[in-house]
């Protein structure tokens, strides 16, 4: 079961020098959209030694305003250049047009803003995902969010929405286990009944078993009145527990350790990856 790490700037040099055994490297696609420069050269060198997963944060697949051709052009150039093992982005929107008070300008919020789980939102996301896949001539994977607002217009569950997206477009599903747990904790803060871990395993059980292409693990921060998915700490015990359930259900799915804020020493990241491997091996052994 390949376990990869998010490869961020503080570890560019050390990873190339020490070349630790990791299943793949994940990078944020947008950080390598440039025509040239040092960052792109670093990625080329990384690609020479590891499979690379290109994980986007800016496609805005759920945008009712549509995709940005500029973004698609650069993603296609990067995909052609790097030949990644997987290409992914999020089930969110960020791009849109401000109202009259904003002069009607089109902006990009540079965040992963939630979409409603509704038929109109599903139609938009299916069209946008299909357009990306047609352009890249390959399926992409779409990741579930941590969402800090929930739309009143939602009339289906998140797993129903994602399952329909996968069924209609043939895209893969990238399941971020931590995001599900963060949402469950925020649900509890909002007064929703039920054990958060149980709610997460129910969420996983509602997804089709053949669509999941990658799992993400990360840390989060409990601020008291809200839980934030900040990717700034170790994976929590409940998330490991939900991860075990995911592997039991879906088998040896490639797994990523993400750490994006307060990035620790590379050894810490590799330690989390080693733990994911151990947890995975044990879960898979029990499952068989």
């Amino acid at each position: 079961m390949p376990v990869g790490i998010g490869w961020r700037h503080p570890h560019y040099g050390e990873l190339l020098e020490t070349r630790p055994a990791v299943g793949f490297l994940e990078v944020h696609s947008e950080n390598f959209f440039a025509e040239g420069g040092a960052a792109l050269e670093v990625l080329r060198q990384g690609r020479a030694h590891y499979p690379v997963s290109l994980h986007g944060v800016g496609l805005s697949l759920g945008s009712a305003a549509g995709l940005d051709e500029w973004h698609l052009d650069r993603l296609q150039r990067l995909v052609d250049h790097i030949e990644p093992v997987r290409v992914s982005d999020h089930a969110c929107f960020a791009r849109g047009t401000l109202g009259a008070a904003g002069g009607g300008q089109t902006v990009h919020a540079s965040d992963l803003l939630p979409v409603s789980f509704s038929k109109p939102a599903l139609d938009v996301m299916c069209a946008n995902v299909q357009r990306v896949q047609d352009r890249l001539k390959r399926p992409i994977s779409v990741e579930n969010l941590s969402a800090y607002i929930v739309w009143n217009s939602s009339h289906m569950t998140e797993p129903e929405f994602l399952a329909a997206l996968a069924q209609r477009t043939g895209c893969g599903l990238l399941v971020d286990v931590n995001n599900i747990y963060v949402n469950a904790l925020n649900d509890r803060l909002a007064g929703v009944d039920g054990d958060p871990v149980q709610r997460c395993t129910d969420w996983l059980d509602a997804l089709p078993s053949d669509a999941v292409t990658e799992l993400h693990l990360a840390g989060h921060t409990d601020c008291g009145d809200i839980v934030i998915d900040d990717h700034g700490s170790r994976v929590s015990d409940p998330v490991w527990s939900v991860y075990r359930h995911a592997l039991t259900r879906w088998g040896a799915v490639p797994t990523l350790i993400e750490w994006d804020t307060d990035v620790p020493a590379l050894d810490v990241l590799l330690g989390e990856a080693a733990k994911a491997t151990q947890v995975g091996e044990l879960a898979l052994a029990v499952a068989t």
Partner: protein
Amino acid sequence: MNPLATEQRALLDALFIQTIGAKPGNATNNIAAQAYYTGARGLKAYKNNAFSLAGRTLQAAYPVMAQLLGDEAFALLARDFWHAHPPVRGDLAQWGAELGDWVQGHAQLAAESYLGDVARVEWALHQAASAADLATQPATFALLSTTEPDQLTLQLSSGTRVITSAYPVASIVTAHLHGNPTLEAVGARLRAGEGESAVVWRQGFKPQVASCSAAEAAFVLALQSGASLLSALEQVSDFDFNPWLSSAVQSGLVLGARPLGSPLSEPS
């Protein structure tokens, strides 16, 4: 507009509404009416993330501006700029181009009138860092002795820009990035009203900036506009080409010579 687009616009308005001077409360109430449970707290989380991102992103592109203004003032400036010029691309490295003009027109920074040009130099450095990779091709310099100067030109480094300023702008930037000249020296030049032209280019993967003479600035600008070597030289006076070329090749500002209208390529 369909309900989905209306819903998404409501959230974007709530995040960016201060940009345009409307009452923030209206947008927040609008989103609260359409979203539930974590509505207000969730919106705050997105806003906090945006402001933090704005500060980090702008500081990465404008490290000298950040030093000049100090961390707290720069963070506030980044937040205001986020509202005044929201990102339009999903790649945040593209955000910030208007900072120079925006700072120049900022009432509270009117006394620091050099900041606009400092920002323009920093943006040129930021762009040079990600410009297309071009290698030096030494063998092409043979063209200088085999081809008439009206039929050839010089290939400048990727990302080359010239910024002419009424302030010692290159020195301000290098003083803060490299300690050369000293801050005392550059302060004296600023008070004396000295202007400078700054040339920005890339040496290998490293963006560079240096002050240059008015003649060098005019010569580089002529080359950038597509002029032949002869035409570029005819546009400047007090310019000693041979020592300049030697230094420009050594620093990576000039990568080679090429026939007019042709790309840079080593002779086969």
